[in-house]
């Protein structure tokens, strides 16, 4: 009797194990199959940060959203920071969900939000990818978080380049902008002509961003001591003798930054110390 009972128990026992094993194998296969079915096509998320620009230690919300190629969009993700990199980078990995059921082919909206509080000044690049078993890592897109000193603005985009008006080709503004840097500093040289038609330049320095697309700086003219050039050469490199502030310059930009929609344009205006207009030009960025 004891023996029979033991035999019955053993059979039952093996039945439980067999069923458990079968269930495990089936669920593993189903999991793997479902994960493969959920392999998406390349995706192009919209990445935005609110607020876009703010002082240090201001909490930001990074929103990643778009249309997912099937019915199993990501609803979560991980965020890692690698601020030691020269790129000053945050990587967001959206996690493609594993499901036991096949995904529908319907294009589906998704939104995933992350919180981040920058502690350092400058611009941090946000890279977004999607990850999942069987699909590896799929690149998505990039956005930025910009941080300025309390009460200060910074440029919304890098405005470096040669800017000129095709109607006055031969004049122009050369702008060097430290967009990623702490100060979002800008140095510009304005190329113009004097009343004799000789080329002259002015510099725009000590710029301060009044808004994220509008900067005001001081306008300087430098001169060197005469007769420093070699007799055979009408021009020479020399140290300046005088640096005279002749007024201010205002540079306002359109068509820059995320989702600008239009080509970059700028209006550069120079004013004398009395506020009267000296120079004005509506310029486009020269393609190199």
């Amino acid at each position, binding site marked *: 009797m004891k023996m029979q009972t033991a035999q019955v128990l053993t059979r039952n026992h093996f039945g439980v194990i067999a069923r458990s094993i079968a269930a495990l194998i089936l669920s593993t296969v189903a999991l793997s199959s479902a994960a493969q079915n959920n392999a998406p096509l390349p995706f192009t998320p919209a990445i935005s940060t609110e607020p876009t620009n703010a002082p240090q230690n201001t909490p930001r919300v990074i929103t990643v959203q778009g249309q997912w190629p099937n019915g199993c969009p990501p609803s979560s993700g991980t965020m890692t920071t690698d601020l030691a990199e020269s790129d000053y980078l945050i990587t967001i990995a959206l996690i493609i969900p594993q499901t036991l059921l096949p995904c529908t082919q319907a294009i589906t909206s998704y939104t995933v939000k992350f919180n981040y509080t920058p502690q350092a000044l400058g611009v941090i690049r946000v890279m977004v990818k999607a990850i999942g078993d069987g699909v590896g890592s799929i690149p998505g897109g990039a956005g930025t978080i910009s941080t300025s000193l309390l009460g200060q603005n910074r440029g919304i985009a890098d405005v470096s380049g040669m800017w000129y008006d095709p109607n006055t080709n031969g004049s122009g503004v050369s702008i060097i902008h430290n967009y990623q840097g702490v100060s979002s500093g800008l140095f510009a040289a304005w190329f113009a002509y004097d009343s004799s038609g000789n080329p002259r330049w002015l510099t725009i320095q000590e710029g301060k961003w009044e808004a994220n697309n509008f900067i005001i700086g001081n306008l300087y003219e430098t001169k060197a001591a005469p007769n420093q050039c*070699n007799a055979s050469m009408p021009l020479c490199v020399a140290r300046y003798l005088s640096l005279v502030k002749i007024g201010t310059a205002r540079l306002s930009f359109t068509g820059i930054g995320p989702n600008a929609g239009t080509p970059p344009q700028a209006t550069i205006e120079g004013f004398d110390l009395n506020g009267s207009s000296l120079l004005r030009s509506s310029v486009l960025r020269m393609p190199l």
Partner: protein
Amino acid sequence: MKTLLIHALLYAFALILLPTASLATQPTSIAITAVLVTVNPENAPQNTPRTITVKTSGAFFCLPLFGVMNSTAVDDANVLTITFPNFAPGFVFPTPPAVAVCPAIVASVEQSFQFTPTKAGVIKVRALQTNGPISGQASILTSPKGETRGFADVSGMYYDNSTNGSGLALHHNAQGTTSGLFGTWFAYDTEGKPRWLTIQETRWETTDILVGNLYETKANANQCSPNSPLCIARFSSIQKVGTVRINFFILRPLDDVIRPTEVKAIGLDGATMFSSSVYRLPL
């Protein structure tokens, strides 16, 4: 006893089958001490095969051993990604939370990938863990056939402190197909008045040395209004006054020596007109 037997069997089975599922729900990164990504050749014409080598150093049994490169997945930002799984297989316990046991044996693992760029430009190669941050990166520079390109972006204001008030503004399309550059040189005339020249039609002679033409533009006289000594005007003449040669002694990412950039203006007769040793202005 029987319950124990069942649990033991199921646990043993789970040890074999479950790591993947456990990983998927418990994304975890491991510490890697160093990742070095190199490209050989780093700079070459289109359609030249490159070897990308990723060398990882760290705790041996936790190193990601098998990276995956999807060579068709160069994204919009021209980034080529090599992805490594988070764990070497077989070292994950399925008991929650998932943890990896990493013996403290320091070693290195090297893996090579083949990639052939077909377009001119710069592609950034990034090695990263599936769920982790970027661990290492390098660049693949590709020039149109028969041409070369600069190693780095040389855009900026350059000046020599001893001749402060003169200088160059360089705009370099470092990521573009041509690696094109447009420059302006601020100088003075014999009266000490500020004059400028432009540097155009540039060509990279080597990855460090750029040559181009030097132009002077002039406008018609009497275009300025009486209240402004200067005016914005269209040029009436553009004259090539010589050539320019700039040796950047390009700073490689691992270099720690900053050397000046040597700029030389050469007249049409081949004689040096003026030269300058300049540094990039920090903004």
